[in-house]
């Protein structure tokens, strides 16, 4: 991606109950690549118990789509953890 075009950015910071769960979320979410890698850059990291998702994007519409999409996925991950972590 051209540096000069990186006009929009966004950082999501989502706390998890433990670093274990934050790391699981990171691993799960990293598998699916962004569809338009030429227009949006997405980096998912973990800092202690927080899941950090950083976006850089040349097009604000695509940024909105990317952020909405990852939020849907994060909600699904959290719902699954909530329902099945520690299930015997």
């Amino acid at each position, binding site marked *: 991606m051209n540096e000069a075009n990186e006009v929009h950015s966004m950082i999501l910071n989502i706390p998890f109950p433990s670093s274990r769960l934050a790391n699981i979320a990171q691993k799960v979410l990293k*598998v*699916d690549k962004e569809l338009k890698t030429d227009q949006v850059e997405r980096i998912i990291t973990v800092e202690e118990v927080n899941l950090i998702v950083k976006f850089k994007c040349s097009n604000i519409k695509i940024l909105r789509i990317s952020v909405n999409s990852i939020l*849907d*996925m994060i909600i*699904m991950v959290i719902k*699954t953890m909530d329902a099945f972590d520690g299930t015997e």
Partner: protein
Amino acid sequence: MIAIGLEGSANKLGVGIIEHNYDSNKVNVLANIRHTHVTPPGTGFLPKDTAAHHREFAIPVIREALKTANVKVKEIDCICYTKGPGMGAPLVSVAIVARTLSLLWDKPIIAVNHCIGHIEMGREITGANNPIVLYVSGGNTQVIAYSENRYRIFGETLDIAVGNCLDRFARILKLPNDPSPGYNIEQFAKRGNKFIELPYTVKGMDVSFSGILSNIETISIEQIPIGQITSEDLCFSLQETLFAMLVEITERAMAHIGSREVLIVGGVGCNLRLQEMMQKMVEQRNGKVFATDERFCIDNGIMIAHAGLLAFRTGYTTPLEESTCTQRFRTDEVYISWRKAN
């Protein structure tokens, strides 16, 4: 060994739990739960809404499957999910859940080809050993035969799937999508008696349906309002034409291979008229037709669990980083390690 399978490539969300017993070589279906995204008459299902449906119902459907199967998490050996083919957003929504479960429970994950799931489940349920497979659903139309560790595609649709043709005609007639558009067409067809000639488009081993759909749409718009023909007649004529084409290419595949068994899988496979027409052809060749009912024909989680477990037993697992989804994933891309070469 026990596997849980998650399926969500189209509008059905399915979770199945299956047990393979090594010693007796028996397969037990422990749970097979499905929840369908049904849209109002005249409309189809869209990727975004279907994905939202799957996300809403994934947790309760998995819970119900675990409860029905009465298995403990520690008894489950692997988690299987549909990698493709199918609609991207719904596939990914379900894969996310599968990956999360894999890491939470520390179980291996197995990516499964949806078509292989249908074929293997059909073989298991019916006991068909080495059949010609007619795979007919809303997204796929293929005639398949096994050879040298692959399911080879002998013939397929050149444009839309046969189920898509039926679904879209149901939409034109505003038939309900509950329980499925194809089922409602089948019921209408039973009351039709006037056969209206439609294009018949078999091209070698392949078939084409989009022209038939355009043609019947025009006929329905022009002739139903003036009372010349009824919706029932058109449903009847459409089914007869489409199924005759499918029977023809299946018969040709049988002649090629020298096989006497036909297995029908996929959502359209539970249409009794298709089974009956196939039966008539196969009888003349002294063969046998194998088909299943809606529990196993229509998309379900159990077939994903079953096909995944077959692969897992040969030592196959999918690294988490590679547990992606793909909208296009041909049946013959998968190496069938669990069957002998011939």
